């Protein structure tokens, strides 16, 4: 049959053709692991300015490309995607549409509009946490509070009013909310009042034209001041007057800048106003229709054009006036990289840098951060980097290790613990009596590998000539994985099973409530209050397992029986194995073994419950912790 001879032919294939085809396939690359976006440093100038500049690039809606870049003004180096590199673990990066950025106190705040959150970072842009606010827009600060405007409205509400939220800058909790006008944008504080512009941006042909005045004490809207159609920006000058940029209706009602002395409109300036920045009695207004930068005296309103080459810009957008320079951005076509320009006040361009998409928001930080480690992403510290929680039980060293000072709160106490024990600092933190705890973590997850994974340091020691007795103040270790990826230790905890876990003398699921009133016992050496002074509550309950007393009197000395394994502050730090823990020991609440690939958070609590006459209570002390899989 002919057909079968054909088949035979198919089998005797000519390899040349195959090779060509296979070569074609080689061209088609395979999918690989998705690597997080790096930061790319670019040297843009040799000039030295002070401090640094954060550039928040909005990114287009739905693209999740909000990007925080950093310009180190002292080294002249521009770092793209700085946030991403500092926080590689943040799921889906910084978020969607960056809308505002500001430094307040020692924190950096970024409003991420379509991720519906305010991201809170330290000044190096390490994430501290976030506050969820729907459709959040802009920021202002006063006292220990941050104020955030939000477009949040509901379909049920025909007026679609927006809100201003108040955030406590210490606890990072929303404390109050007030309804204002339609689609509130920028806001600023003058004296005890908050002024927020109501743009009405969702209501084509029906834009709003007012500024809501909010009394910060009662947190209620006390007045609505008419300014001009579609106000989007509001800034305060040194005279305490408000400068409001009204966009008009993009048709016959032209844009204008309105100056208001809190009682009346005192000046109207006919100009388009993409952005405004007030510095040294001059309001700099970015007229993007004519591509000019106006400088208007906030005292006599004399107007001058700053001679910048903005006509070469495609889309002048962001603006910041500072004491030594003017920063202006070009957002180009909104869907490609923008450019950040730095000018002297005489109009000389000093440098420029390529930014992310839509560089809209700028803020200076006073001191430049350490950016010389270009591979921040790659090198991890073997030492713990962060203390998340610190809640000791009543004890003789509480409020001393670390030291409580007037005005401290839970957050600042954590920072003090960090100063003591993070990054191999070598200090000491007490957990107080039974149940007191501390939660800390590394700048990376700790992997569960063969053998022990984490060493936790304390101040235990052996009695001379013995390894059976010594000073042991055993703490139990809990570990947790950041299952919800929020960077906070609010996930399921697993106990690392120590040698006494199955001992009948161990009391599991114990709890005790400590109260301020119950803080009565003092010993002569420590006369300070033993109740954690930074707590606002008058009582708190601690939970955990309680070990049976281990103290014996040997040669007139109170010493403890050293436990076999699995407890913090039980064996001397020189015994690396004796002070180290294996994540494989993890058990759940029912005692069933749990296999964890890696962990993000570690909690240690004092499991001893003994108060000795001479030396006070047995209290786990912590002096640091080390990831045994990292060598540095």
């Amino acid at each position, binding site marked *: 049959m002919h*057909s079968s001879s054909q088949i035979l*032919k198919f089998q005797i294939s000519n390899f040349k*053709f195959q090779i060509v085809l296979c070569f074609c396939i080689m061209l*088609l690359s395979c999918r690989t692991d998705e*690597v997080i976006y*790096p930061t790319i440093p670019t040297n843009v100038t040799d000039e030295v300015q002070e401090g640094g500049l954060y550039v928040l690039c909005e990114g287009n809606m739905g693209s999740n490309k909000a990007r925080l870049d950093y310009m180190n003004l002292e080294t002249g180096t521009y770092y793209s995607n700085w946030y991403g590199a500092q926080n590689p673990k943040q799921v889906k990066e910084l978020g969607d549409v960056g809308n505002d950025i500001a430094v307040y106190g020692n924190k950096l705040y970024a409003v991420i509009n379509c991720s519906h959150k305010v991201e809170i970072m330290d000044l190096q842009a390490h994430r501290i946490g976030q506050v969820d606010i729907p459709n959040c827009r802009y920021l202002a600060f006063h006292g220990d509070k941050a104020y955030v405007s939000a477009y949040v409205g509901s*379909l049920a509400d025909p007026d679609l009013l927006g809100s201003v939220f108040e955030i406590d800058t210490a606890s990072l909790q929303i404390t109050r909310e007030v309804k204002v006008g339609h689609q509130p944008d920028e806001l600023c504080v003058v004296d005890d009042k908050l002024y927020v512009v109501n743009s009405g941006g969702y209501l084509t042909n029906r834009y709003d034209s007012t500024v809501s005045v909010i009394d910060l004490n009662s947190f209620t809207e006390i007045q609505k001041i008419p300014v001009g159609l579609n106000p989007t920006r509001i800034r305060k000058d040194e005279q305490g007057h408000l400068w409001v940029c009204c966009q008009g209706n993009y048709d016959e009602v032209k844009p204008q800048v309105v100056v208001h002395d809190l009682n009346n409109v005192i000046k109207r300036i006919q100009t388009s106003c993409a952005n405004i920045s007030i510095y040294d009695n001059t309001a700099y207004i970015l007229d993007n229709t004519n591509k000019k930068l106006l400088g208007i005296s906030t005292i006599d309103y004399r107007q001058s054009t700053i001679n910048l080459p903005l006509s070469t810009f495609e889309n002048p957008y962001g603006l910041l006036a500072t004491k030594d320079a003017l920063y202006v951005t070009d957002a*180009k076509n909104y869907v*490609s990289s923008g450019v950040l320009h730095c000018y002297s006040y005489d109009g000389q361009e000093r440098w420029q840098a390529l930014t992310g998409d839509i560089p809209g928001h700028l803020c200076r930080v006073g001191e430049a951060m350490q950016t010389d480690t270009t591979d921040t992403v790659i090198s991890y510290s073997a030492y713990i980097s962060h203390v998340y929680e610190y809640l000791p039980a009543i004890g003789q060293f509480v409020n001393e290790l670390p030291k409580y000072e007037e005005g401290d709160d839970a957050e600042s106490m954590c920072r003090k613990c960090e100063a003591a024990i993070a990054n191999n600092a070598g200090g000491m933190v007490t957990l107080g009596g039974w149940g007191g705890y501390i939660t800390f973590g590394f700048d990376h997850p700790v992997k569960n590998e063969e053998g022990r994974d984490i060493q936790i340091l304390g101040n235990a020691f052996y009695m001379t000539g013995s390894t059976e007795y010594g000073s042991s103040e055993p703490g139990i270790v809990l570990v947790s994985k950041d299952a919800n990826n929020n960077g906070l230790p609010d996930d399921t905890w697993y106990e690392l099973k120590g040698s006494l876990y199955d001992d009948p003398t161990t009391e599991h699921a114990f709890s005790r409530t400590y109260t301020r009133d119950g803080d009565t016992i003092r010993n002569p050496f420590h006369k300070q209050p033993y109740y954690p002074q930074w707590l606002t509550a008058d009582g708190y309950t601690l939970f955990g397992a309680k070990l049976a007393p281990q103290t014996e009197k040997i040669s007139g000395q109170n010493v403890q029986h050293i436990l076999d394994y699995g407890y913090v502050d039980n064996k001397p730090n020189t015994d690396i194995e004796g002070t180290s823990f294996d994540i494989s020991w993890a058990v759940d609440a029912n005692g069933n073994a749990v296999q964890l690939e890696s962990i993000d958070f570690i909690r240690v609590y004092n499991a001893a419950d003994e108060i000795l006459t001479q030396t006070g209570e047995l209290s786990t002390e912590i002096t640091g912790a080390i990831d045994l899989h990292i060598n540095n």
Partner: protein
Amino acid sequence: MIKRYLFIFFAFCALSAFAQSEADSLYNDFHIQEVEVTARALTKDVIVPQTLKGEELQRLNALSVADALRYFSGVQLKDYGGVGGIKTINVRSMGSQHTAVYYNGIQLGNAQNGQVDLGRFSLDNMEEIQLFNGQKSDIFQSAREFGAAGNVYLTTRKPYFHPNEKVHVHAQMRAGSFALANPNVGVDIKLTDALSLTLDAEYVYSDGKYPFRYRRVLPTGEVAYDTTAIRQNGDVNAVRAEIGLHHYYRTTGFWRVHAYNYYSERGVPGAIVNNVWKNGERLWDRNTFVQAQWQDEWFNRWSTRLLLKYANDYTHYQNYDIKLLPSNNEYLQQEAYLSFANKVQLFNWWDLSVAYDYQYNTLKRDEWVSGVTDERFDRHSHWLSAATAFNVKEYLRLQASALMTQITNHKSQITNPKITPGIFASFRPYPKIDLSLNAFYKQSYRYPTFNDLYYTDLGNANLRPELARQHSIELAYRKATKAYDLAFSASYYYNRVTDKIIAYPKGQQFRWTMLNLGTVKINGVDAKADMSFYLPLRFVLRSRLGYTYQKAIDVTNPNDTYYGHQIPYIPWHSGSVVAELDWTSKRGDHYGFSYSFIYVGERYSQQENTIYNYVQPWYTHDLSIYGEWNVQPCRLKANIEINNLLGQDYEVIQNYPMPKQNVRCTVALKY
């Protein structure tokens, strides 16, 4: 990864082996073979379409027309994921609005945004899908058909009756992952010898919930994050019902009327971005149209065709997600269309055709939140075409067409009529060998849509149409014997799109507008092979290979940071492989196994080709097994498909995750 790689490698090697032996036989055994070749008429296409039809179409791992079009060369599918996600196609990188889609010969319109969601068209009653680059081969067509750069023809099932048959019934149930339930019933009735009726109805439900995973690693290889979530608000509920009446009279005449109704409610799952894992938008659609076609021929020389259509499309979009721009928008589009086409055969080597089309479109818009109510737009469109086709002996076929388009939009001045030419040539050097060299040049306009012109604050009533110029050359070869049927073709094309309509920031803060700004230069190569081998013991091996290379670069302005960069979402390399082994038993039962592989190479999500916009390649392996049995008096079919077999986590459009491994089972009974 290695394993996965080898799989692809072997798939290609195996198939290439067959390809090679074909080439051997062509050059060495031509004379011997010639005897065996069954007489076969040369295909008359000046433009060789890509076609999927009949059983091959039904056996593809495809649910909708959009899924099937992925197997065509030169086509990029935009897919937002899931059963309910929008799926549009872009032919040869000119933009999806340059592609026209025809349903039983009449274009599906969307005057509002110019895009047809091909994910809504079921394959169940589809008989054939064809893609023509340039235009359809036959000059006897409506005027408007000369107007698009790429054309997809969808042809639904036509009734065929054996002399004693009166009724055909087709009942089918499909179920699968994401709670897919998809029953379909079709009935064909022979009313008289010449008149027949077809009915087809379908329901689709899916909850659209599928797991997706985002995993990122640090440069060291350590996991930065690895999170899995479930896609939310991707549910779809859709009903489709169609009725068609066909009448053939004399031997030349024919008329048919077709009514189509589609209703759906779906969630719009939205982009997955930081801190947002769920969106609340809802969309309701109703698409209704009635179309009629009449055609006859006189004196064996003169053919006439009349087309009529009325369409009524309603869309309701609602956003209950208080975090976003609250919306409650309703749109009603209506379309009336008439086409009158005539073709005259002057000599048996020379045809002439003239056609005139008229269309009226209206859009009524109500956007309750922004306060727009009862806003209406309309448009009158006129098309006049003249075309000619002539043959020089058997060697050369030529076609030339010219189309005059005049579109008058509500509120804008009457624009000058635009004339666009097209020239097509096909050269066949050997009368007995089906080898042809085809080439064409064509211009076509993509007219601004209602959204481009009038969308609140964004529209620009002064927009000009966007112009695409195509140059294409193709070498096609086909050979069929008792042992095999092979078709190969390779084309090279150069397209230039100018006056591209894009959204651009306005001179005022926060505003966009539509502008004629943008030039794109496209160089591409499509290569495809269709092969069937009739093996002993009633085995048939069929395979289909496609490969596309495209370099589509933005050449608008040398000062742009993206000048010379590849335009968004166009991969340099893409391709597909389908292989199917079918066995027929002595009593006529079928069993088969089919494997398909789709590859879309690296590309960028935005104009600038930077690492921040880089999108990884994706490729999926799909498998299906099927059986077909005679169960008198019916024929029973069953099919199990496994899609994305290796569970790749991928995105076609950034932040729109696609489903991992998923399964569909179909059981069909035909009477």
